[in-house]
């Protein structure tokens, strides 16, 4: 038993440095060699103290360095800390930016001299920092930073701790941005092979790892890596082919398969309220097709005239004007009900809103007083609104006051015939130009109307225009049947109006 104890003791002793042996064992050493009675008790206490010092060794291997604010030059002694790029607990690599300080019109980026973890920030933002005093504490971890420790053999007894130390000694290096990317994708950095300096893990390594895992398409590696700045004589020059690179391709999406939750803010939150309110209104749907061939011809004739005046003439101004003309005959479609559904207000002005997809979301600016404008003037106003919408500059004047709205849903066919339902928040009048070879379909309009349109008045809209109208916020529940007629009339009115010759000065 004594022999076993002696062997284990000597094995442990090999692990420890002179320093700790001297500190921890001192007199005990002598005592042990002299007294061999009660070896098991000694061995037990020796083991615990060894373990304790082993743990101390592990902690002592990670010194915390005070990173001082270096001299900025020109005799400047103090600066203002303006912005921190890191916080306590963040991992940094050498040359990563730590903070931005300002002094006397000079903005200085302070970069880290070490790899490690930020343990303490000495200043808040807007505080004054002194040159030569500590700025941050960094717990360094790179093996080269530490003093030489003798870890020669790995005895069976302490193999666990030793292996633990080895892993810690080769802790993975990566910038905070790379670590965040790994964390978002549930990747252990220890599983990723680093291809950067000193085995550092780069963003590309994470993406390659992800690609292997999910088989996803990766964005192309950045074309512009750290350029080797040319030295005065010795370094090879930047090769001409390398300097002329193709422009980087647009990044392709990477599927990470992880849910992302974000709070709903601002405009989008307000839209929830608007759309919920819209649902309280009973909806009524009606679909029709109108032949637009003559309109197409008319527009192609008028387009160069408009272009000469700097306006792009689409079909929308025609539809807007036609809507206004029919509203003159059916003012009930340009009205609002009050809260208690007691009174109905017939709005005098035809402020026709147009749904627009902008960077801020779906906005509905309106063209004001269309009843006073010609088609060309409507086109001018539309162009102005579209420019503002594209620039994200629509204001309350443009966005409020609409009384009737048109939505162009593009060249997509509305799915079948719409059944009026309460749960479908579609705008009052949808318009879509569909395939020119379709045969005119009937909606709710009776065939009588169709015959009349075909025979009498090919009219403005002669290409297969699918008209699909819902009165939306202006009509009351229970009177749906009653209002169907006026809408039919409204559609036919568009056709009737078309008999006016294009030279009518009111319309150009």
């Amino acid at each position: 038993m004594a022999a076993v104890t002696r062997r284990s003791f000597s094995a442990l002793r090999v692990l420890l440095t002179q320093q700790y042996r001297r500190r921890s064992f001192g007199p005990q050493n002598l005592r042990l060699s002299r007294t061999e009675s009660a070896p098991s008790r000694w061995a037990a206490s020796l083991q615990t103290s060894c373990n304790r010092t082993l743990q101390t060794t592990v902690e002592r291997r990670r010194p915390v360095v005070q990173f001082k604010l270096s001299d900025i030059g020109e005799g400047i002694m103090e600066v203002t800390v303006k912005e921190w790029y890191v916080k306590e607990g963040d991992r940094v690599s050498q040359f990563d930016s730590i903070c931005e300080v300002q002094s006397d019109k000079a903005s200085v980026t302070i970069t880290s001299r070490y790899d490690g973890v930020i343990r303490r920030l000495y200043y808040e933002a807007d505080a004054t920092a002194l040159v030569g005093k500590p700025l941050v504490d960094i717990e360094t971890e790179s093996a080269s930073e530490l003093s030489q420790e003798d870890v020669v053999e790995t005895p069976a007894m302490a193999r666990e701790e030793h292996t633990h130390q080895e892993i810690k000694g080769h802790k993975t290096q990566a910038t905070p941005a790379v670590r965040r990317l790994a964390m978002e994708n549930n990747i252990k950095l220890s599983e990723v092979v680093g291809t950067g300096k000193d085995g550092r893990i780069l963003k590309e390594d994470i993406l390659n790892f992800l690609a292997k895992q999910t088989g996803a398409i990766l964005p192309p590696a950045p074309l512009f890596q750290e350029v080797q700045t040319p030295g005065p004589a010795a370094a090879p020059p930047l090769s001409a082919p390398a300097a002329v690179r193709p422009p980087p391709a647009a990044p392709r999406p990477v599927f990470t398969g992880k849910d992302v939750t974000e709070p709903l803010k601002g405009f989008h939150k307000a839209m929830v309220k608007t759309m919920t309110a819209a649902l309280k209104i009973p909806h009524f749907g009606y679909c029709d097709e109108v032949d637009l061939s003559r309109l197409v011809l008319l527009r192609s004739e008028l387009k160069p005239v408009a272009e000469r005046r700097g306006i792009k003439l689409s079909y929308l101004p025609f539809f807007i004007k036609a809507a206004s003309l029919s509203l003159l005959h059916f003012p009930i479609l340009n009205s609002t009900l009050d809260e208690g559904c007691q009174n109905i207000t017939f709005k005098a002005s035809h402020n026709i809103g147009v749904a627009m997809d902008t960077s801020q979301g779906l906005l509905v600016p309106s063209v004001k007083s269309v009843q006073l404008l010609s088609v060309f003037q409507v086109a001018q106003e539309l162009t102005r609104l579209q420019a503002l919408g594209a620039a994200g500059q629509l204001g309350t004047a443009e966005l409020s006051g609409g009384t009737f709205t048109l939505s162009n849903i593009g060249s997509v066919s509305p799915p079948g015939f719409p059944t009026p339902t309460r749960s479908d928040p579609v705008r009052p009048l949808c318009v879509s130009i569909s395939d020119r070879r379709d045969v005119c379909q009937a909606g709710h309009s009776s065939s009588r109307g169709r015959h009349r349109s075909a025979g009498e008045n090919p009219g403005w809209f002669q290409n297969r225009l699918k008209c699909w109208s819902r009165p939306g916020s202006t009509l009351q529940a229970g009177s749906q049947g009653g209002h169907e007629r006026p809408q039919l009339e409204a559609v036919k009115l568009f056709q009737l109006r078309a008999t006016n010759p294009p030279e009518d000065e009111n319309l150009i």
Partner: protein
Amino acid sequence: MLGTFCVLSAGVQRAWSSSSCLFMDPSSPGLVLQSQSTDVFQNLALEDWIDAHVDLQQRSVLLLWRNRPTVVIGRHQNPWAECNLPAMRSAQVPVARRRSGGGTVYHDLGNLNLTFFASKKAYDRRRNLKVVTDALRRVRPQLDIQATDRLDILLNGHYKISGTASRLSRKSSYHHCTLLHSADRSAIAVLLRPSCPGIRSNATPSIPSPVANLSDHAPSLQWEELLEAVVQQYSSEFGLTSSSQCVDPADEALFPGVGSMEAELRSWEWTFGKTPKFSVETQLELRDERPAARCSAQLQLEVKNGRVESCRVEVPATWLPERLSASLAQALLGERFCPHRAAAALSALLRCESGPLHSRLHNLCDVLVAAMG
């Protein structure tokens, strides 16, 4: 005018096909470049590129550039506090945030910008300014030109004709300054004032100074002559042998990666999102037409990273029910501090409301949007 800016530089013009040729000439310890572009973002991106990619340990570089009318704010400044953004929008004058510190300046084609690039060890702003003052004294000895402790250059001891800012990175540095030759001073007065009232922030404030143009006091001094003088003085101070070159900051072949630097400088996140946290506290004057009535409300906003972090609108309950003003304040949370974004969010809210309160609510929205510049 742009062509003459480049053609009349000293020495022979050489065509540069790659940056290696441009920056690799070992014979000279210095290099003078003139930018062909008058776009502030392209020129600032070129500054960044040179700072990041040229080895400045062995040589120094002087870059000469000018911009179409622009307002340039310092790295840690607040654009809403420094310049009148609505007026700039209608005059189509953009705002740019540079990477160096300091205050706000107005650039136009009558203002010459000089950037002195050097290693961090060779960073010496007074030496750089000496190049400018000596050049001016040489061509117009009768002018009283002095550089101050604050690194401004004063004319006749009173008028500021040049301001300075600089940036230090790990190994490199640059120091740039303006030089007013024939700028539009009336524009400065109009554009360099706050966009909206009640801003409280710790951002670097600008210190306004009376300015003058060199051309006002030395009418015969032409732009080209000024350029020549500066280039010659720089050459003699820094021991230059090569001539000055014209470069196109948008040339991706010559400066690979400059395009993405330019894009970053143009982005909203950089220009507005980098504003230090600030608050807005102001009084709103509300009114109603029918019946005619008035009321005052208090607005309190906190803006962080250019977005509304918290918002409080205190309207007397007799004017508007509290739930309405509270929902208005709620609608702005998280949106950019921008009148257009606010208008979009508030319009969506307005559509839900109708009745007698609608006009008052509409008025409150209008006044709120106006308070955001």
